[in-house]
């Protein structure tokens, strides 16, 4: 039985991740609809949730077109890379006590590495398409993701310092008393911003800004390959939400002062759901910045903030330990 557990868990995460990503596409449109005083998709099934199935069937029957002018192998490889990278990121997320695929002492680095791999997908997709819009979108996207990656890892180092470990299970257990969102508020802000930029969601979706680049790096993609880019993006959203909860909001831990009557996994899910809703509403609330503004925000504001956060955290921790 214990031999079989990881296999079952892997299957659950796989199926759960893909279906959740599909359901979020519906939930996002629905929530945005209410935000903008309209209904959103509400025709198929109860509350329009059948829209998810309809979209999936439609995408499967779309033309599986590979442009004759493209670099065909790379063109097909690009959308698979983002799905694989994002799915692999889930391997280190601790969903509940003893419920994870992998708990190694480099868990956090594994997550950072997997999110970094996603940049290949976007860049290769843009290059292989052999289309001017796609090339510009891919380049912009690569520059954006690479810039925000520099301090994405750095923003988490305050937590690593307090825990003394890269293992995500250790990090969650270190939050038994106080969640890190209180002691590492600056880190949280920087991580959220860089997380949005990494998964290039609105308001930082410059790589696919439709008013100037039609669809950016996936201009030439259609059908299931386009859907895989979208799947990767939504998986990235879920993954970032999971990591925010794990690192800053106590993972499966119960909020203090509340009687512990629900299983840990439910607490984890509720927190992740709230973070996802936050990301969706962020999309409705904030307009898209200009590209040079985005880049200077990263290099001139976020990076110095992260470094200051690190030094201040270090000084306070050493002071407290010495006293």
């Amino acid at each position, binding site marked *: 039985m214990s031999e079989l557990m990881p296999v079952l868990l892997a299957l659950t995460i796989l199926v759960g991740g893909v279906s959740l990503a599909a359901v979020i596409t519906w939930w996002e449109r629905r929530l945005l609809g209410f935000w903008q005083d309209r209904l959103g998709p509400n025709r198929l099934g109860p509350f329009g949730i059948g829209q998810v199935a309809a979209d999936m069937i439609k995408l*499967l*029957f779309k033309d599986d077109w590979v442009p004759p002018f493209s670099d065909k192998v790379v063109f097909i490889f690009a959308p698979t890379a983002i799905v694989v990278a994002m799915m692999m990121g889930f391997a280190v997320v601790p969903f509940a006590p003893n419920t994870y695929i*992998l708990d190694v002492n480099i868990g956090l680095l594994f997550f950072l590495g997997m999110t970094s791999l996603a940049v290949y997908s976007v860049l290769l997709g843009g290059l292989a398409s052999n289309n*001017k819009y796609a*090339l510009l979108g891919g380049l912009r996207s690569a520059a954006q993701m690479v810039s925000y990656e520099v*301090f994405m890892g750095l923003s988490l180092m305050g937590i690593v310092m307090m825990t003394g470990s890269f293992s995500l299970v250790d990090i969650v257990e270190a939050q038994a008393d106080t969640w890190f969102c209180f002691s590492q508020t600056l880190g949280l802000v920087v991580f959220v911003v860089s997380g949005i930029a990494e998964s290039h969601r609105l308001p930082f979706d410059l790589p696919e800004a439709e008013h100037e680049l039609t669809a950016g790096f996936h201009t030439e993609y259609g*059908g299931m390959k386009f859907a895989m880019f979208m799947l990767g993006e939504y998986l990235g959203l879920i993954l970032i939400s999971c990591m925010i909860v794990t690192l800053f909001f106590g993972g499966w831990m119960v909020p203090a002062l509340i009687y512990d009557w629900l299983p840990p996994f439910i607490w984890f899910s509720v927190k992740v759901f709230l973070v996802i809703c936050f990301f969706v509403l962020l999309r409705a609330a904030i307009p898209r910045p200009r590209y040079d503004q985005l880049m200077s925000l990263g290099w001139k504001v976020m990076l*110095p903030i992260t470094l200051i956060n690190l030094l201040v955290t270090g000084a306070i921790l*050493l002071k407290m330990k010495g006293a």
Partner: protein
Amino acid sequence: MENQYANEIWPLAIYFGMVIMLVVTMLALSWVLGQKRREAATNDPFESGVVSVGGSQIRISVEFYLVAIFFVIFDLETLFIFAWAVAFFELGWAGYLSITVFIGVLVLALVYQCRSGALEWGNKTRTGLREDQLTTGEST
């Protein structure tokens, strides 16, 4: 020791296999089920309805190249900070002072990078000032 490592890693290997299978299934299904229709303009690059002129090997802004270089420099430096952070309490104040000097150098590089105009996008002159800053006499 090696055996224990192998015990930890095999669920990851199975998971990786499943993910690959999922991706291959998605591609194969859409290849089998998708419609095959070819019309006059199907095989043209999409440029919002305008007939494409020239190849896509266009000249790109040098800023992208600069960003890539900065990424290599700064991301390498963050790796040293990672190593310090995980051994933070063992290193104590001595380690803290060392990393402060290190981060100081990093910040100096960042300031130089900003002052030299490497992060400005758009038209630049050799002094690092933008065209409009030169004409209005505004200093950096």
